[in-house]
């Protein structure tokens, strides 16, 4: 009889499928994973320590670097925490612009996810389509904020710049051209038997496990739990807007893919309503640059493209945060690989990792 031996395999830190520098120490029995130990920290830039040595306004550009695919939401959650402590309410137009930026960023992030997810399971064509369309969203951001990736756009008391009617019109032109393409995206994958076999029933995450691990965002909604901060605790203008939360029961890679595709449709729906409802008037309150925040502590959270992102902020009455902690969704999602990966084949590792849409900068902070 031939006896086989378990061996250790290092995946990463420089592996193209790990979206950054995630290292996974896999114990393998032939092609099957026996155990998995994710190791993070290679991208630790001590953002929380840096925040303690900057004024409240100076922290905003640092939060951009948390999750480079949805910088707007990281800006936003930090600003929301500062505003909650200082008791500042931005004007209604500012709230709408924030919603527009958050949802556009969600579309950009899901398109990026769609492209890389397909690459990882071996389909190259969808990637090209997705990036061509993401480019149009980035053009919109460039028009509004001047930057394509790290915006520093959402500021304390409002937004960095007023958006013009031209921007809103261009956004509608983009939506009109892009929304009919979602069925095309889906047709590229759904009707493909290879894709179907690679994703259906792979990486099953049960409801209990999702709760136990604290999973959030599209990942938990693909496991049958309707949890979305936009509905549970509506922030900004979300209470005035009409949208659904797509929930899927299967909990596998395919369901997570479906959840994100439906979410893009809902984002487009929200954006169209914003275009109709956006009020006039000022978009931000003029504030002192070195604003002093009263003593207190707060935790605010919003729904980013990846899940529930939160900011725990402690102020002791000065012009710098005393403690600034970010609760990031990817930090939670990476832990779950220890549980999901044992028993799967090597090619499925990529499919499962990609389906969780992890981003390492926000894990390591």
């Amino acid at each position, binding site marked *: 009889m031939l006896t086989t031996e378990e061996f250790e395999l290092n995946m990463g830190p420089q592996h193209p499928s790990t979206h950054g520098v995630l290292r996974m120490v896999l114990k393998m029995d032939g092609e099957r994973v026996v155990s998995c130990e994710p190791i*993070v*920290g290679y991208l*630790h830039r*001590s953002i*929380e*320590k840096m925040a303690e*040595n*900057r004024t409240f306004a100076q922290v905003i550009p640092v939060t951009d670097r948390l999750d480079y695919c949805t910088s707007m939401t990281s800006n936003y959650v930090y600003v929301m925490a500062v505003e909650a402590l200082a008791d500042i309410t931005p004007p209604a137009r500012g709230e709408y612009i924030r919603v527009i930026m958050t949802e556009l960023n969600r579309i950009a992030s899901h398109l990026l996810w769609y492209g890389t997810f397909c690459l990882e399971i071996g389909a190259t064509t969808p990637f090209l389509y997705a990036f061509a369309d993401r480019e149009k969203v980035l053009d919109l951001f460039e028009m509004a904020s001047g930057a394509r990736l790290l915006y520093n756009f959402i500021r304390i008391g409002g937004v960095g710049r007023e958006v013009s009617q031209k921007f809103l019109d261009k956004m509608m032109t983009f939506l009109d051209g892009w929304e009919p393409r979602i069925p095309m995206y889906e047709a590229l994958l759904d009707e493909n038997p290879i894709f179907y076999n690679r994703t259906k029933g792979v990486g099953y995450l049960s409801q209990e*496990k999702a*709760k*136990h*691990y*604290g999973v959030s965002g599209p990942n938990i909604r693909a496991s049958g*739990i309707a*949890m979305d901060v936009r509905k*549970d605790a509506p922030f900004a203008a979300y209470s005035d807007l009409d949208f659904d939360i797509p929930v899927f029961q299967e909990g596998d890679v395919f369901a997570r893919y479906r959840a994100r595709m439906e979410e893009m449709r809902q984002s487009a729906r929200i954006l169209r309503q914003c275009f109709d409802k956006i009020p006039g008037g000022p978009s931000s309150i003029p504030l002192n640059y070195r604003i002093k925040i009263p*003593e*207190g*502590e*707060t*935790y605010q*959270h919003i729904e980013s493209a990846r899940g*529930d992102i*939160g900011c*725990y902020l*402690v102020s002791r009455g000065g012009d*710098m945060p*005393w*403690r600034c*902690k970010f*609760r990031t969704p990817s*930090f*939670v999602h990476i*832990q*779950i690989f220890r*549980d999901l990966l044992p028993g799967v084949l090597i090619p499925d590792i990529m499919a499962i990792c990609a389906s969780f849409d992890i981003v390492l900068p926000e894990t*390591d*902070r």
Partner: protein
Amino acid sequence: MALKLEQIRDRLRARFPEHIIVEDLNNMAALVIPQEIYHDVVWFLKSDEELDFDYLEFETCADHPPDLLAFVCYLRSLGHGHRIALKINLDRNQPSLPSLADLYANADWNEREIFDLFGVIFHNHPDLRRLMMPEDWTGHPLRKDYLHPNVVKRPD
């Protein structure tokens, strides 16, 4: 049914009558509880059907020298929709707490991070190692008195 903070506080007081459980003056959502009943309180919050705190958002600390290290953990109930923050004032010189890793799976890395950056020892933790910093690092970077040549203080 979502419970208010006062209702949760009253339930905890009824369950742990010999301990002091009060609201936090700085944080609207928090209860300050004594260190020795921390694990029992969380277990009770999770297992009681009407409280049903089944979701751990995060745990973290804030350093207040010279002698206070404020630990906080945010819990949430997905079914009922209520949330709570538990706050514990730790001794800054020898901070230690029981681990929640047996109740919530994501407590594992949260506690490793706190151990790494603040130096809190978690008892009964399955694998208490540094998470962000290299293994041979000395000191706990998020403490206020941490000194490193690369950390430059902003001039006043």
